[in-house]
């Protein structure tokens, strides 16, 4: 790191940075019409968290109903509406935009040392498209609900008399939001990297966002077209999927998964990006195998397009197709597996600080490990035939989506929170929340593997009594998970109100966002910062009076001040 940077960005937020992006203008219009990527990021954050709250409440209602094998309080129809909306809200409104749109928007320009994204107006437009899509989803709930499952399988979805068209319009509009964000990120990363930041000096989080954007731009249009065809069939009676009209119902599944399998990587790649940052910073070790991680993000993004048929092993597709899709599926598993070893090797001989973001990162490795390994059972043809459409699959993808994406999102949120809002949160309580969430997740989803492989089908409002013990365990876990998340929310809320002021660099990160003040000023950097190796922590020294790290030109290990003892629960 150069000396200029250190002095430039040595932050005294109280003294010489009176305004930041949060305080520079006031009033709701200054937010509603803002072009600042940070404010848009914060609005996304609020929006996706509200969606998560909604989806989470629905999950709890579902889990409560499933405590007994017979009806507790939901009719079959209501149950079916509820699981459909839970799935649709969680995937389309929460998981897909969570890390890229909320954290990515905020951080991508700052990590590039830039003032904003390439197309700030387009960015605001994507946010409002998200809002419009969300409104259509709410409308669908009000106007008769939706009972097709988030997968919209035909011919059920073309014949049910719920608001399928409204919901597909919602998903269609959300798709555009996603595409615009992807385009914006690609353009920004391609054109706005600062001098010195070659592709291979880019933080891995940006590689992950780049790979994600490629998928968003290439795959989402297919979903859009599929949904248009679905609506056309429902409204105009054009036979595309309905065999009664001369269509092919399985075609829909091909189209749908052509988008939705890559969408799984839209959800997990950014999560892996966050984990790469956090593991390296909190181990104070250069990330191991940088190039491999970077390339593997792109490889996963591209290979992810070739495996959609693994959702259809029992649909009657040809045996040859099934075999090919199974083989390709295994090929995607390898790069993901290797990333885990890269993270572990990064920790080796490091100086591991178990602060909250790192706790979440470790939880991620554990949970994603289970999620990934159980994928092997589903990729293998003979076992998949038995496990397909059972709770085993439900458990598998919740381990990946919740244990993976949600946990990484929380890791990232706790990691960048001081940067975003300029406040620290209470370490002890935040770690307690992390621990409860971790236990709750396992208790919720592990019993689902067992009942699934014992034959419990998914999307069942009623079930055979032999599965009840597993359901009761799962519901208990879900309540615990809910408690953990509420504590987490309270901790963050409390930090906004009376958290200690955050230093520019509380964790000792070396990427560029830690060079600007917390929270960042409107245009992020007065002078474009100089770029070094994003994972070289040598120049970073802890300063007691800052309660954070500063960049110092020379290594002076002997004069280090005592670093804070890692807080314990």
């Amino acid at each position, binding site marked *: 790191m150069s000396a200029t940077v250190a002095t430039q960005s040595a932050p005294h937020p109280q003294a010489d940075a009176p305004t930041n992006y949060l305080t520079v203008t006031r009033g709701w219009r200054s937010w509603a019409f803002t072009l600042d990527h940070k404010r848009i990021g914060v609005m996304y954050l609020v929006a996706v968290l509200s969606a998560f709250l909604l989806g989470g409440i629905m999950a709890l209602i579902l889990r409560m109903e499933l405590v007994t094998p017979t009806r507790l309080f939901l009719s079959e129809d209501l149950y079916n509406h509820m699981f459909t909306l839970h799935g649709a809200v969680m995937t389309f409104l929460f998981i897909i935009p969570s890390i890229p749109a909320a954290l990515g928007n905020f951080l991508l320009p700052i990590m590039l040392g830039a003032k904003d994204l390439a197309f700030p107006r387009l960015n605001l437009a994507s946010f409002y498209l998200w809002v419009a899509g969300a409104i259509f989803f709410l409308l669908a709930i009000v106007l008769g609900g939706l009972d097709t499952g988030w997968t919209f399988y035909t011919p059920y979805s073309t014949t049910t008399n719920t608001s399928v068209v409204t919901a597909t319009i919602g998903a269609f509009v959300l798709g555009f939001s996603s595409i615009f964000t992807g385009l914006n990120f690609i353009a920004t990363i391609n054109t706005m990297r600062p001098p010195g930041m070659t592709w291979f000096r880019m933080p891995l989080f940006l590689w992950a966002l780049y790979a994600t954007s490629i998928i968003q731009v290439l795959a989402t249009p297919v979903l859009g077209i599929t949904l248009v065809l679905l609506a056309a069939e429902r409204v105009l009676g054009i036979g595309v999927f309905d065999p009664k009209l001369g269509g092919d119902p399985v075609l829909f599944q091909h189209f749908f998964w052509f988008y939705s399998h890559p969408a799984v990587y839209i959800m997990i790649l950014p999560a892996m990006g966050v984990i790469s940052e956090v593991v390296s910073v909190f181990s104070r070790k250069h990330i191991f195998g940088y190039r491999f991680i970077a390339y593997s993000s792109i490889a996963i993004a591209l290979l992810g397009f070739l495996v959609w048929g693994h959702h259809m092993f029992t649909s009657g597709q040809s045996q040859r197709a099934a075999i090919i899709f199974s083989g390709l599926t295994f090929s995607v598993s390898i790069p993901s597996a290797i990333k885990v070893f890269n993270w572990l090797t990064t920790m080796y001989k490091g100086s591991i600080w178990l602060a909250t973001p790192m706790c979440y990162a470790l939880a991620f490795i554990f949970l994603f490990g289970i999620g990934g390994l159980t994928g092997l059972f589903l*990729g293998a043809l*003979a076992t998949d035939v038995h496990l397909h459409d059972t709770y085993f699959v439900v458990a598998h993808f919740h381990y990946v989506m919740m244990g993976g994406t949600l946990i990484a999102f929380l890791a990232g949120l706790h990691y960048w929170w001081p940067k975003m809002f300029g406040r620290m949160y209470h370490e002890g309580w935040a770690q307690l929340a992390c621990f409860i969430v971790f236990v709750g997740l396992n208790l919720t989803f592990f019993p689902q593997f067992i009942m699934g492989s014992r034959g419990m089908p998914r999307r069942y409002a009623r079930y055979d009594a032999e599965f009840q013990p597993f359901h009761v365990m799962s519901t208990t876990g879900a309540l615990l998970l809910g408690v953990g998340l509420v504590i987490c929310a309270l901790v963050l809320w409390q930090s906004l109100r009376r958290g200690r002021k955050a230093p520019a660099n509380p964790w000792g990160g070396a990427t560029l966002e830690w060079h600007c003040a917390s929270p960042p000023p409107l245009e992020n950097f007065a002078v474009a910062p100089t770029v070094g190796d994003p994972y070289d922590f040598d120049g970073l020294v802890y300063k007691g009076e800052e309660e954070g790290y500063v960049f110092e030109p020379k290594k002076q290990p002997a004069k280090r001040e005592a670093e804070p003892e*890692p807080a314990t629960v």
Partner: protein
Amino acid sequence: MFSNWASSMLFAQSEGGSLFLSPPSSTVAPMVDSLFSLIFWISAFFFALIVGLMVLFVVKYRRRNGVEAQKTAHHNLLLEAAWSIIPIILVVVIFVEGVLGYLDLRNPPDDAYEIRVTGRKWNWAFQYPNGHVENNLHVPMGVPVRLVMTSEDVIHSLYIPAFRVKMDLVPERYTKAWFEATRPGTYRLYCAEYCGTEHSNMTANVVVHEPGEFEAWLEDASNFLDKMPPAEAGKLLYERRGCIQCHTIDGTSKTGPSFRGIFGTQQPLADGSTVTVDENYIRESILEPLTKVRAGYRPVMPTYRGQLKDAEISAIIEFIKSLK
């Protein structure tokens, strides 16, 4: 083989069943189970390795004052090659085993006993070679059974966990599944593809008969018309042949009018005339449903010409008569 040894460790508690899997009850099930336990042990090994290393590093390299992180290489070709190649070999093994098992699961022997399966919202109809139809599946033990399946409405999926068999039923298309049951008993059969309101109630039993007893059962079951009062037989037909899907017996209308108390009444038709519901009208409605369409209903009832015998139609008529 490793996987056999492994399955006897964790997966052989009761009759070959285990915590994760119900007792295998078809010829293909043990093979699926041994692949399951192979993957299980590979996964358990890697999971233990990952979490073990993670915990070890966290304990050993926990941040302490005055202790710097040590410099290690940023990459190491040999290490990276090792942890790429070993998993590749393992997944190739899993993949191949999966394919072999799948080919067994999908390709029935030529001499299989054939049963036709129809899925509809929300019940199953299993039709035997002699034309008899039941809502539960009865099969002989030790004989390969081929299911030729289709759906009358949306996609369903036939799933028998104890046999490790699952296959979708697609409208206007035939799909096939097969199994050979290896132990007598009653097993559960589920619809595994979401199909609407009663999806979770679209279940049935699979009854596996001891060798030799199946034929006797089929003979006996097919003659149910002779053995019970016609109204009762009519009720069975009403359930088994799917009239229940569109007609209720409690007075509420579904896709079609309810059967309750209609016999002997005058009913309006779509063309403005009226009709008296008597034996002939019911018979006509079953064989030529579109000649006289009730006012307020869509003409969607399928014809049962060639599917219901005269005696069966008479039984249904008696059943409708009995619904006062």
